[in-house]
């Protein structure tokens, strides 16, 4: 188990931990938004392919 002095960061905990926490948020957001963007593009492309097969122009 980590001792309390590690978490205290020599009195700078209120700056150090939010810094790392925000970095985690940015990394997670990048991964999540990129995957969501790709899935949305795949859905749009699938819909366009289905419409093309049905002979309807995409709106």
């Amino acid at each position, binding site marked *: 188990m980590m001792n309390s002095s590690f978490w205290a960061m020599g009195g*700078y905990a209120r*700056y150090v931990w939010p*810094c790392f926490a*925000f970095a985690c948020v*940015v990394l997670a957001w990048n991964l999540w938004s990129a995957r969501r963007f790709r899935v949305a*593009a795949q859905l749009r492309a699938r819909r*366009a*392919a289905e419409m093309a097969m049905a002979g309807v122009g*995409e709106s």
Partner: protein
Amino acid sequence: MWTWFYKLASPPYVYGVAAVLAPWLLGAAALAMGYGLIAGLAIAPPDYQQGQAFRMIYVHVPSALLSLTVYTVMAAASAVALIWRIKVGHAVSAASAPIGASFTILALVTGSLWGRPMWGTYWAWDPRLTSELILLFLYVGVMSLRLAFEEPSRGDRAAALLAIVGVVNVPIVHFSVVWWNSLHQGATIVKLGAPSMPGSMLWPLLSMWLGFMLFFAAVLCIRLQGEVLNRERQSTWVREAVKS
């Protein structure tokens, strides 16, 4: 060698390569960042002047370097797209912009958190901080300009021009601490001569830097797949790809 380069202009080839590379790059990024995080937080000794507060370097420096790297990638891709009329260049530029903007915000926020205990303020209109803020505005400008036109190709061209013109800010950000009086410390790693840090502090930093770069490459691959699909969705190869 040039065959490989020419292949990069082909959307189906780029889509396939990005799909294969993304998980490997993500895995390598996790390993590099995992080591950097453990060594940086628990093994590296505290700084003799800044104490434990210096550990913010393991997030701040990689994110700041990445903000400049991503902008350079975006500008280079834009130049390739404009000069050789390679459509994939616009897709790379569009996929890079939100990633670069997010890491610029991370660099600014972590810099602020570091500045408060060291300088006594979260923000100062210092040359380094101001030029990094201008970099964020450039990212936002490139993204907005791309969406500002009804015809996507015009938006791509306008965004590419702004990205290329804005690249002049990259050396300004880097050399601002040399050219002007600045609260910000000078270069520690990216400079002529050996880095001014002991190995026990430097290796975790280099590992985090590598991890951030690999993470960017992985996220770029994922976003690039989406961009290519959006731009090529009327093509036969996309219809075949989404059917399978």
